[in-house]
């Protein structure tokens, strides 16, 4: 009996070891989740001149501080075409998350807001259902110079996106307050 018990024990212990030691390193499910960089690409409609402003935090949430955090500087009384890019630059080559946001447009929404009436933002691009998505937009800068902030927010709201959603709805994937000035 005792010997039997011993075998039983050994078998169980072995099983635990085997289970415990299975150090399987597979595809990291967090890979697609990390967004390190927000790029705001602005093209002045008349001259076609392009400026790029960036926020970059390579190690994601926590850890080191953002390595790049530009101030958005635009000329007063102009119309700009805005194109947003979300990237994961923690690896080479970088992942373009914008494509995913575009493909899953029905679950995402981008909100842009300028403080101190520095710009009027309109023409948000739409998702396949015709609801605002906002990867591209049109910015009309104020006629007078000023400084403030510009907030870029990317919301993830699988299954619940609807017309007229407030910015508070859903999970926040990106929320960056750029310094913003119109000269």
């Amino acid at each position, binding site marked *: *009996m*005792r010997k039997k*018990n011993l075998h*039983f*024990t050994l078998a*169980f*212990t072995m099983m*635990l*070891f085997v*289970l*415990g030691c299975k*150090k*399987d*390193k*597979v*595809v*990291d*499910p*967090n890979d*697609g*989740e990390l*967004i*390190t*960089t*927000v790029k705001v690409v602005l093209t002045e409609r008349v001259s076609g001149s392009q400026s790029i402003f960036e*926020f970059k*935090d*390579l*190690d*994601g*949430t*926590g*850890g*080191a*501080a*953002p*390595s790049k955090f530009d101030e958005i500087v635009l000329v007063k009384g102009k119309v700009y075409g805005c194109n947003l890019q979300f990237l994961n*630059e923690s690896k080479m080559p970088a992942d373009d*998350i914008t494509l*995913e*946001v575009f493909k*899953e447009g029905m*679950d995402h929404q981008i909100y842009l807001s300028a403080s101190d009436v520095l710009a009027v933002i309109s023409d948000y691009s739409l998702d396949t259902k015709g609801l605002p998505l906002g990867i591209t937009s049109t910015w009309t800068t104020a006629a007078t110079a000023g400084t403030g902030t510009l907030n870029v*927010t990317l*919301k*993830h709201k*699988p299954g*619940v996106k*609807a017309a007229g959603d407030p910015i*508070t*709805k*859903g*999970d*926040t*994937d*990106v*929320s*960056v307050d750029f310094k913003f000035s119109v000269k």
Partner: protein
Amino acid sequence: MRLLSAISFLLLFSAFAHGQCILTVRGTVNDADTRSALAGATVTLVELKKTILTDNDGKYALSGICPGDYTLRITHADCQTLDFHFHLKEDLDKIFQLSHAENLLKEVVVVGTATVRPEGMTGELKGKELAATRGLTLGESLQRITGVTVLQTGNNIYKPVIQGLHSSRVLILNNGIRQEGQQWGSEHAPEIDPYVANRLTVIKGAASVRYGGDAIGGVILVEPRLLQYKKEIQGEINLAAFSNNRQGVFSALLEGGFDEKQTTAWRIQGTVKRGGNAKTPDYWLKNSGVEEMNMSAAAGWRKNNKGVELFYSIFNTKIGIFSGSHIGNLTDLENVIRDQSPPSYIRDEGFSYVIDRPYQSVQHHLFKLKAFAEEFGKSRINLTFSSQLNIRKEFDITRTETELPQLQLNLQTHMADLVWEHFSGKKIKGSMGVNAMYQDNYINYRYFVPNYQSVDLGIWAAERYQHEKWQVELGMRFDNRNRFNIKDNDAQPFDLLIGNMLVPGDEYGKRNFSGLSGTGVVAYKFNEHLRTSFTASTAWRAPQVNELFSNGLHHGAARIERGDPTLNPEKAYSILGTVIFNNEKWEAEFGLYNKEIQDFIYLKPVYPALLTIRGAFPAFDYAQTNASLTGSDIRLAYRFTNHLQTHVKASVLRAYDKKVKTWLIQMPSERYEADLEYNFIDGKKLKQTSIRVGMQHVTKQIHVPPTGNIKVTDQGGITKMQSDYMQPPEAYTLFNLEATTGIELQKRRIDLVFGFNNLFDISYRDYMNAFRYFSLDRGRNISIKIKLPI
């Protein structure tokens, strides 16, 4: 008002039912092993303090007793004390089988004769009280014990808090084995099926040298009943149903022996549980369901003075995390606090059993082998080996399609434990032992705590001296805790960012801690009615890996936590005094404690909130301070008649940060409980019927730091600096009702318990619930519990 009239009706009724005091309780006490009469056993009618010794034929008789509920306690020098609860309506003739000490090895080992454990410091849940908690989690069940509260995360995750301390400061012994999961996490509930236990014991305070000096808060014992070495197969089925989250629980147990000689025994047990979304008085909590599937098996062999026992259990759970608690950043948190309610697209969801992301799934295996040899009546040696494997997976809401978790922690633990107990001495009894533990933690996916290995070694001794009315107990323990191979899978902790390059930081390296802990207890018994005890103890706890090395987003709490690799062990010095009084009418327990904890490790808020791509996040660093915890636990019971009694409980705690000179956050506020219980006279079919009306009052926690670094704008637009994003919730009072009965059908008894929790569907939030920011607590919950013998 209806409640009051019900109470007065009960009072009146009990006055009439008060019958004549002429009844007799008689019978025989036998030795369960030899079946022969046991002479000289003490038979006590506990409530009346009537005592008699059995004669040479093992017979006893107590007469002149009023009808009512009683406990008959039978003790004998070599035997386990037996308590028999019964309702007396007519003369009783009862034969008792008293198990010889030999049968009790497990009982004695688990409870430990030499465990320094004076009365008044411990609380127990068994029998009727335990039956009323069936279907609940371990943490919820333990709340019935004075001085025990819970740290709650939503409505499925409950961590026991003993006198304000929890997580790695509270040790849980599952069937005698130190439960090793990821117990550091405030939202990691103990991975234990309470149906395994037939007794839950809480030892308050750092008084257990036997199980490890790190249990500064206390020890919780989850004890299964003894294996039954009888050949016949027996068992029970437990069913429970709850209205609030439409939860059903099924648990079954089957046990027996293999042979006539009573040398072998076996038992199998399993539990299945499923619940859906819980409901507050105003709305459903989306994605708050729970699933659980557990199994355990035990086998024993014994002959003469030695034996072997095997135990294996597996615990599986999947717990939905309330959707409204999954917030993106600080702004989202501020919004939900401002609105005082989850957003409408979450609160408008109805009932569902479906568990979506975010959720956690945990699997826990425990395997135990115990061997013992005994020199009868003199000493005993126990050797225990155990292995545990804990697999924790946390699944977040993801943008990309994936079946994988975002965080996985695998912890395996192997332990060996050798104990020598000696009990031959008239005045001195005790035990001593050595133990060793090896652990390996392996992480996958997102980083939160590192991989590590550890070896812990301990040696201890505890002795008890008893002389007349005095009892003195002393215990000492030395521990060495060694952590090594501490690393992340591919990165180093505290990486530096230079330009666009991540540069590996310092290696975690090794940590080694050693220290002594000790306990001394002096107890004095004035007479049969009054006892007192005084305990002084020291304990220390090595910093846990999360306290040293965590670095990242704690998803359940939506905050960034950062460890400090330079932390020192925390050391606790505690004193505790108890006075216990009882007579025919009264039962009173009064306990007073003070714990001075040097280098108390806690999470210190860091300002400003950390800036990330997802907005600002509250950040916390692990830091040390000197804490002082002073409090009192009081329990009173008064018996109006043999049918009607009342219980009152109170727990008060003040926790002070002596360095910053302010209150410590996240400590339970005052709790007062009172109930009135009426026991009916047994009917032909219905036995032990009782009804209990209870009330629980929890005060608002006002002992929080008056100011802090968190800028909070209230609804009036006024900005204040606070220590928390939300002020502690208001006080609340809940009522509950419990009705119990046993139906006797052909010699078998079906036990029923009906429960009504939060009877009046009161809306409240509790300070000790991490989800108080996001939603109300649960509303009314009606339950039924059925126990069927097989």
